[in-house]
């Protein structure tokens, strides 16, 4: 894997005996001990993820608000400094360029946290649509990102960090808020967000501080049962929370409404690039809808497996796997809208065999 890019914590992962895989061109830890064990650590205590492969793109300068407003499905003018929103960058056909979190740093500066596989595409997309006065900077290489997730996260962070400009503790940070903080002498940005369905934080830090901060956090969390967690657990956790993964639930041709992201769209009638196309697609009639389902027979659904009804293929699974929390097999997939109602019985075709499944309410697990 020598041609793969490395995060600033590559040596730490190797020393911990992590199994490394290629993810979006990065050598990333998929598991350290066991996916089930790391998953349980996040649900019950806390897990620390290196997600430095993700990208950070800054949009700043006069006109940055209008630019971000135009490019993102979520409202931007009403987003106050220190707050975070989830949104989608849409293309002219109403498909998803990427799904991102947008951070408002100041009146005229934002940064987006974007999927590793899409950093270059997003950067070029934003650059192409930004007016000249707006600067668009890819800060991904200088920025490391750690996700500390799970119920013990707040108390672990309070032990080693404090917010810079207020006397508030990090645990006092509300959900979807972020602030500058000092983490054992290192300047960082801490955000109460995550991709696991658990309470937790994402910590943006200079790449050169990553090794030191990683050690500090692992030491601070030892007594709470903090464990390092890899992309394997990140995927089972986000699946239980029914959070979409770009390339699976979302892509350049999928509309965010098909993906069930209605509440992250400010208006269907205008106000952002792609809105008219989405509206047009809705008027023509939605052809598919993302649903969550639970397997009732025997088998595990996987991305790409067909979804069928009475022997006829009607859709396909986008993500699936065992849910360690529920002890059953769950999945997300696209079906025609008439089959999207909770309670609908569908079949998942697993190795040429139809296995019964039922459409359920998502997220699969209760909110944190």
């Amino acid at each position, binding site marked *: 894997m020598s041609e793969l890019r490395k995060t600033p914590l590559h040596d730490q992962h190797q020393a911990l*005996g992590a199994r490394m895989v290629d993810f979006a061109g990065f050598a990333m830890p998929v*598991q350290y001990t066991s*996916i*089930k064990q790391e998953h349980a650590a996040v649900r019950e205590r806390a897990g620390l993820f290196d997600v430095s492969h993700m990208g950070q793109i800054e949009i700043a300068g006069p006109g940055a608000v209008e630019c971000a407003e135009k490019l993102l499905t979520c409202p931007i003018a009403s987003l106050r400094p220190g707050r975070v929103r989830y949104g989608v960058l849409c293309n002219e056909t109403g498909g998803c360029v990427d799904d991102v979190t947008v951070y408002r740093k100041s009146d005229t500066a934002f940064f987006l946290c974007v999927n590793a596989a899409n950093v270059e595409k997003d950067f070029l997309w934003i650059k192409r649509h930004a007016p000249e006065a707006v600067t668009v900077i890819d800060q991904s290489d200088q920025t490391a990102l750690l996700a500390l997730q799970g119920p013990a996260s707040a108390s672990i962070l309070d032990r080693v960090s404090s917010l810079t400009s207020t006397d508030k503790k990090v645990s006092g940070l509300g959900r979807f808020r972020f602030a500058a903080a000092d983490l054992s002498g290192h300047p960082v940005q801490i955000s109460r967000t995550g991709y696991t369905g658990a309470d937790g934080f994402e910590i943006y830090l200079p790449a050169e501080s990553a090794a030191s901060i990683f050690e500090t956090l692992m030491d601070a969390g030892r007594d709470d049962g903090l464990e390092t967690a890899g992309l394997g657990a990140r995927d089972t956790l986000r699946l239980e929370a029914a959070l979409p993964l770009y390339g699976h639930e979302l892509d350049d041709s999928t509309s965010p409404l098909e993906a069930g992201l209605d509440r992250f769209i400010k208006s269907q009638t205008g106000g952002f690039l792609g809105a008219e196309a989405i509206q047009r697609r809705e008027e023509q009639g939605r052809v598919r809808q993302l649903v969550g389902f639970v397997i009732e027979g025997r088998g*595990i659904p996987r991305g790409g497996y067909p979804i069928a009804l009475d022997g006829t293929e009607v859709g396909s699974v986008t993500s699936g796997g*065992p849910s*360690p929390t529920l002890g059953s097999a769950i999945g997300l997939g696209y079906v025609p809208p008439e089959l999207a109602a909770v309670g609908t019985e569908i079949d998942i075709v697993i190795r040429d065999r139809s296995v019964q499944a039922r459409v359920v309410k998502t997220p699969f697990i209760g909110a944190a």
Partner: protein
Amino acid sequence: MSDFQLPEDLQYTRDDEWVKSEPDGHYRVGITDYAQQQLGDIVFVELPSPGDTFEAGQPFGVVESVKAVSDLFAPTSMEILEVNQDLEEAPESINAECYGIGWLIRVKATEPEALDQLLDRQGYQKTIEERS
């Protein structure tokens, strides 16, 4: 690479399975310690039914970990005598004891002479080293 157990009294395949000759002249089959470590937490097993027959190398079942689906290949031409029913409820037995309670199938070898071509412990160990 972490350590893995390879009992001396078993034969092995390049597909990471072990074959044990039993006193009644039949054979027991499972996956190796190396394989279960590579797979990680095993969450699902699909096995054939007694009476099913397979040619050597043919897929006869599936083991699934949290992330991966892996085919199981017939180590030799065989007829299924018994499958390990307990794995349906407790597939994690393969992680716990792949040479014991985590066995997969008991078979009758339909071309017993072909079993001579299976690997011994040292031969199998070498194939693993060649992969990394």
